[in-house]
């Protein structure tokens, strides 16, 4: 284990930390910030990770969770996570290295309110041919909150037939809320498919009025629309009971936040 003095403190001058909470980073313990967990998926096997992070209304401070994942040939890693923490700063970072024919599936949801700042940061390394990855992130921002998605995809030389997709959409419920998207592609192979998309907007007003015209009150309409919006990120969960439960808990958070 390296000495604390040899570890560098990340700052918002670095690209991968540009939207982070600089003030919190400046005082957090360096070894905490530079700690990486690891997940090893053996060839041909599948590992799942489902998480729902939330905290009470009095939460403060920050949290950073960084994980390195290695997926062996033909293996799968599926990670679904909902960030609904009211803390000042929350960061979930994944660095996923894919061997031949491996797959990475990621669904992330950010529910932000008050002045929280939450982010998903992913770096997906397609280091061998035929690997695939699919990432869908949805952010619902209320109050003065900020939601970020920084997604980097690297395709190594000779990683032919790579198919990598990432899609980020955010809706801002209040003036003062914000979202940042930073897709990054680094491709050194020529026979690959890499798709990325990002959109930041408001709740669909035409749909909200259509619902009102059928008798659905504004709060219920908003809830239905938000539910439909975040469900995209959980659509790839095979076990629908898990998906439904995650969705339900997310909606409870929305209710609790008075959204």
């Amino acid at each position, binding site marked *: 284990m390296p000495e604390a003095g040899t570890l560098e403190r990340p700052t918002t001058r670095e690209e991968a930390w540009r939207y982070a909470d600089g003030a919190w980073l400046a005082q957090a313990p360096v070894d905490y910030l530079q700690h990486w967990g690891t997940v090893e998926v053996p060839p041909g096997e599948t590992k799942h990770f489902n998480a729902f992070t939330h905290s009470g209304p009095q939460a403060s401070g920050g949290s950073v969770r960084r994980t390195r994942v290695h997926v062996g040939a033909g293996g799968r890693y599926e990670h679904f996570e909902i960030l609904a923490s009211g803390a000042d700063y929350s960061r979930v970072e994944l660095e996923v290295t894919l061997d031949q024919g491996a797959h990475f599936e990621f669904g992330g949801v950010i529910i932000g309110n008050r002045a929280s700042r939450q982010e998903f940061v992913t770096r997906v390394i397609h280091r061998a041919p035929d690997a695939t990855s699919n990432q869908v992130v949805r952010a619902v921002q209320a109050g003065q909150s900020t939601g970020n998605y920084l997604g980097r995809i690297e395709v190594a030389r000779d990683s032919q037939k790579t198919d990598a997709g990432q899609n980020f959409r955010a809706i801002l419920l209040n003036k003062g809320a914000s979202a940042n998207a930073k897709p990054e592609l680094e491709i050194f192979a020529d026979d690959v498919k890499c798709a990325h998309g990002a959109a930041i907007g408001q709740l*669909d*007003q*035409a*749909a909200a*009025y*259509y*619902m*009102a*015209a*059928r*008798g*659905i*009150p*504004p709060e*219920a*309409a908003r809830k*239905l*629309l938000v*539910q*439909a*919006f975040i*469900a*995209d990120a959980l659509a790839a969960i095979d076990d629908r009971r898990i998906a439904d439960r995650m969705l339900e808990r997310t909606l409870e958070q929305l209710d609790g936040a008075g959204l």
Partner: protein
Amino acid sequence: MLQISDLHATVGEKPILKGLTLTVPAGEVHAIMGPNGAGKSTLSYVLGGRPGYEVTGGSVTFNGQDLLELEPHERAAAGLFLGFQYPVEIPGVSNVQFLREALNAQRKMRGEEPLSGGDFLKLAKEKAALLRLDMEMLKRPVNVGFSGGEKKRAEMVQMGILDPAFAVLDETDSGLDIDALKVVGKGINAIMRAPGKGVLLITHYQRLLDYVKPDRVHVLADGRIVQSGGPELALRLESEGYDAVMAPEAANA
């Protein structure tokens, strides 16, 4: 049942309705026809309370209630149904979920018990069959991937399920082929032809009126009703055109 009196409305500062007066008694179907830009769709949105459509004068009374005082969802619960010229797509929300939520929200506002899942599905199946819409389509997201005709039939299924007292149907006939027009016309009659109900049909063409026979026909031009008559007025408009039928009116004015 519906009394519109000297109604003025603007859309983004621009006056569109300029003193529109119209009464539809219970048990009647009235048709509104008129050239493009006359204010037909604006009238339907003003009645439905769509944001951006501002009433600057006049009144609308619905079953003795001041309609303009109510929020859009309260108007629906009071029994008003607005058929959209362009039904809206809502990805991620199924028709079944949407309509059950809508029906139970309306029932709640009226102080009625919510309908159970089973009873709701039975009702939905019955109305889908009436409009010859595959029940499978109701399990799909609202209007997503529906053809123009399917959207209009889905609107009428919604109307059947919600069972409103009064329907304002804005060009429900557009985008329908002849067979679908017949199905939709029959559906409107089955759902809305009743002593305590009323319909305001907004249309460009006579053809829907072959299936849904209007009691009265009104011509809307430049934000006002300029002429009213029986069903024969629609036939005259169809054969002679708006200019010819409206010309004597303009000459008198």
